[in-house]
């Protein structure tokens, strides 16, 4: 289920100093504050909760070990988020073989007649702009749609549309050719649109 982010209690200075000093009290608070958003980031790369837990542990440990290299004038959250993303991708590259292969993407891509026209009518959507912010049905539906993609499609889509990486960055991170990355993002977007279309038409 998707929920809104909670307010953090430790300020950045306390986090940085506490981690540098290996202060176990601060580290506990740091886990309370950041493990949840980091877990959310990591679940985009693996859907298996025990794998995600392993990646989370490794990510938090890396953050502690690398804290000396963090430039304190910048914001710490994007820096931590990047470590989580990189760990997620590294994990995927190692375990690719045993990853999920359950989505039948073709079943949910738009269908066309033989002369290249849409097979069924395409309706517009009315979206309340605030609706997706909250712990709403739409946000849940969207999250499920992205999660139901296989990693080959999900990861490029997440990196592009959620993390805002460029095609070039994504291709080099995932070891793909740029046209392949583009095609996967495109098809993943079509898939998500189709899932949302079903949701909008059904309500």
């Amino acid at each position, binding site marked *: *289920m*998707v*929920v*809104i*982010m909670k307010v953090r209690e430790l300020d950045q200075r306390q986090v940085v100093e506490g981690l540098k000093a*290996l202060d*176990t009290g601060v*580290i*506990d608070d740091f*886990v*309370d504050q950041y*493990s*949840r*958003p980091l*877990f*959310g980031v990591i*679940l985009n790369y693996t859907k298996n*909760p025990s794998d995600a*837990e392993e990646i*989370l*542990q490794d990510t*938090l*440990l890396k953050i*502690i*070990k690398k804290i000396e290299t963090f430039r304190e004038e910048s914001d710490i959250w994007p820096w931590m988020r990047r470590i989580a993303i990189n760990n997620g991708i590294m994990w995927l590259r190692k375990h690719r073989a045993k990853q999920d292969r359950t989505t039948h993407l073709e079943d949910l891509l*738009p269908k*066309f007649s033989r*002369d*290249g*026209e*849409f097979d069924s*009518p*395409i*309706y*517009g*959507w009315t*979206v309340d702009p605030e609706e*997706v*912010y909250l712990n709403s049905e*739409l*946000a849940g539906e*969207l*999250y499920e749609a*992205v999660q139901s993609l296989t990693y080959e499609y999900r990861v490029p*889509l997440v990196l592009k*549309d*959620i*993390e*805002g990486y460029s095609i070039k960055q994504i291709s080099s991170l995932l070891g793909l050719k740029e046209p392949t990355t*583009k095609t996967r*993002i*495109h098809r993943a*977007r*079509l898939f*998500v*649109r189709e899932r*949302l*279309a079903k949701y909008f038409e059904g309500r």
Partner: protein
Amino acid sequence: MRDFFKCQECVDLLTDYLEGNLEADVKDRLDEHLSGCAPCINFVKTFEKSKDLTSRLREQQVNIPREVQERVKSFLKEEIVTLSSERLK
């Protein structure tokens, strides 16, 4: 000049279209198709909307089980002991 684009060709080109990666003549032909095709106009709008909504997932997060947090804490405590003793060396 070739035939007008079909809906299917428009759909195939949408990501490149929205990101401004199409050659001028291809973009013109796509615009020409879009100007007269209601299903494609709806498709483009909903495709963009879907992409915008997806990007909002960045602000959202999942719940983490309490026991996962607790296990992570004890894992880190053990690691901290190792790290601290390494520092003292």
